[in-house]
C-alpha cells in the first residue's frame, strides 16, 4: 500500500487511542514508555562515557545533573514508571504473542458480539498490570522523595 495520500496515517494517528479499547491505550503507553527508555539508555551511555575523561569529567557531569535539583528526581521518577510499565505490560504481551494466552479460542459469533481476545482474561491482565505499576510507581516516588529528604 502506498504511503502517499493515505488519510490520517502516521505517528499521531497511531498513538491516538481516544475512543478505543483499553488494549489500544496500553499499546500507546507501551510505545511511549519504550521511547522514554531508549532516551534514558542513550543519556545513561553518554553519562557513563564521561568516565573515560577521568574523575574530573565524571564529577563535572554528576554536578551538572545534581544542579537540576528536583527535576533530576522527576526525571528518574518518569524513567522508573516507564520501566515498570514497559516491563509489566511486556510480560502480558509475551503471554499474548508468544504463548497465545488470554486470547480465547475460536468461537461461533453470537450477537451482540464480544471478541474473546478482548474478553475478561485480557481485561484482568491489563488492569492488573496498570494497578501493580501504579502502586510501584507511587512507592518509587516516595523512595525518591525520601532521597531528597522530603519524606
Amino acid at each position, binding site marked *: *500500500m*502506498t*504511503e*502517499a*495520500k*493515505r*488519510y*490520517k*496515517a*502516521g*505517528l499521531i*494517528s*497511531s*498513538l491516538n487511542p*481516544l*475512543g*478505543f*479499547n483499553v*488494549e*489500544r491505550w*496500553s*499499546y*500507546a503507553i*507501551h*510505545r511511549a514508555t519504550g521511547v522514554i527508555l531508549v532516551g534514558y539508555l542513550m543519556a545513561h551511555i553518554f553519562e557513563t562515557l564521561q568516565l573515560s575523561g577521568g574523575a574530573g569529567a565524571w564529577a563535572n557531569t554528576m554536578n551538572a545533573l545534581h544542579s537540576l535539583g528536583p527535576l533530576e528526581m522527576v526525571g528518574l521518577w518518569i524513567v522508573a514508571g516507564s520501566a515498570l510499565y514497559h516491563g509489566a505490560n511486556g510480560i502480558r*504481551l509475551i503471554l*499474548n*504473542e*508468544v*504463548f*497465545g494466552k488470554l*486470547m*480465547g479460542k*475460536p*468461537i*461461533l*459469533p453470537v450477537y451482540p*458480539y*464480544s*471478541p*474473546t*481476545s*478482548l474478553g475478561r482474561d*485480557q481485561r484482568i491482565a491489563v488492569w492488573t498490570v496498570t494497578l501493580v505499576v501504579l502502586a510501584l510507581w507511587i512507592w518509587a516516588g516516595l523512595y525518591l522523595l525520601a532521597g531528597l529528604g522530603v519524606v
Partner: protein
Amino acid sequence: MEKVNVDVVRTGGKHACYELKYRKGMTVLDALIEIREKQDSTLAFRHSCRMGICGSCGMTINGLPGLACHTQVSELKTDTVRLEPMHNMAVVRDLVVDILPFFDLHRSVKPYLMRKNIAERDSSDREYRMLQEEVGKFLQFDYCIICGLCYAACPTAALDPAYTGPQAITQAFRYMADPRDEGWKERIELLDTSHGVWRCHAAGACSFVCPKDVDPAKAIQMARVEVLKRRVLGKKGKEGSRLITVTAPAAPKEGTKPPPFDFPQGGRGGE
C-alpha cells in the same frame, strides 16, 4: 433528539455540515442517503446492501471506524455525527476511499483453498468433507466481509504501509486452519516476515471495531504461535492431513463425466 447535525469531512479536508430531522431507527447511512437526496447531491459515499453484509459503507464515525448501515444515530449518544473517510487509506472523494490496495493485501495471502493435485481440484464432482470440530477451528474467521475497518483501526497499519494487515493475516490463518487446504507452507512463509505477523503489537483495535466478531487479534496471535512453532520446533504444519489423501482421477476425456473420487467412507461428518 429531534434534529441531527451531520459534519462530513469532504475531499481536501473541508467540512460540510447538514441538519436533518431525526427518525427513530435512523442509521448513519440513512442520514447520508437523505442528505444526498434532499440537500447535497454531490456528497460521495459508498454503500450497497444496507444490512451489514457487503462491507461497502465503512467510514470513521465520531472518531471510530464503523459501518454506516450498522450504526444507529441514537447509539452515538450525541446529536452531532462527525464523519470522515476510513483512516490508513487514500481518499478518492469525500467518504469514498481507495480500497484496492487493501484488497491487494487480502489477495497476497492467497485466500482460497490450495491443493497440490490440480487435476483433482479442477475436476472435482463432490465436496471435501470435514468434521464439525474441524470447521469450528476457522469458521469465526470465515465471517470476514472485507470491509477494511480493522485495517483503518490498526495503529501498525498507520505506520507501516507494507504491513500485511489484520484482515489479510486473519484470512491467511483461516486457510491455514482449514483441514482441506494444502497451502500451509506457502502462507506461513508469507506471514513470517518483518511486515507480517511480527509487526502486530496486540493493540486489539481490529477486534474492537470488527462488525462481525471475526476477532482478527485472536487470529493473528494464533498465526504467530504457528510461526513460532515452525521457527523454534521446526514444525512442518498440517501437510499430510487426513483429508488430502484423495486419489487424483485421470484427466477426463472430452464429453465424459469425471470418475468419482475415492473419499474414505464411514465415520466422517455423521456418516
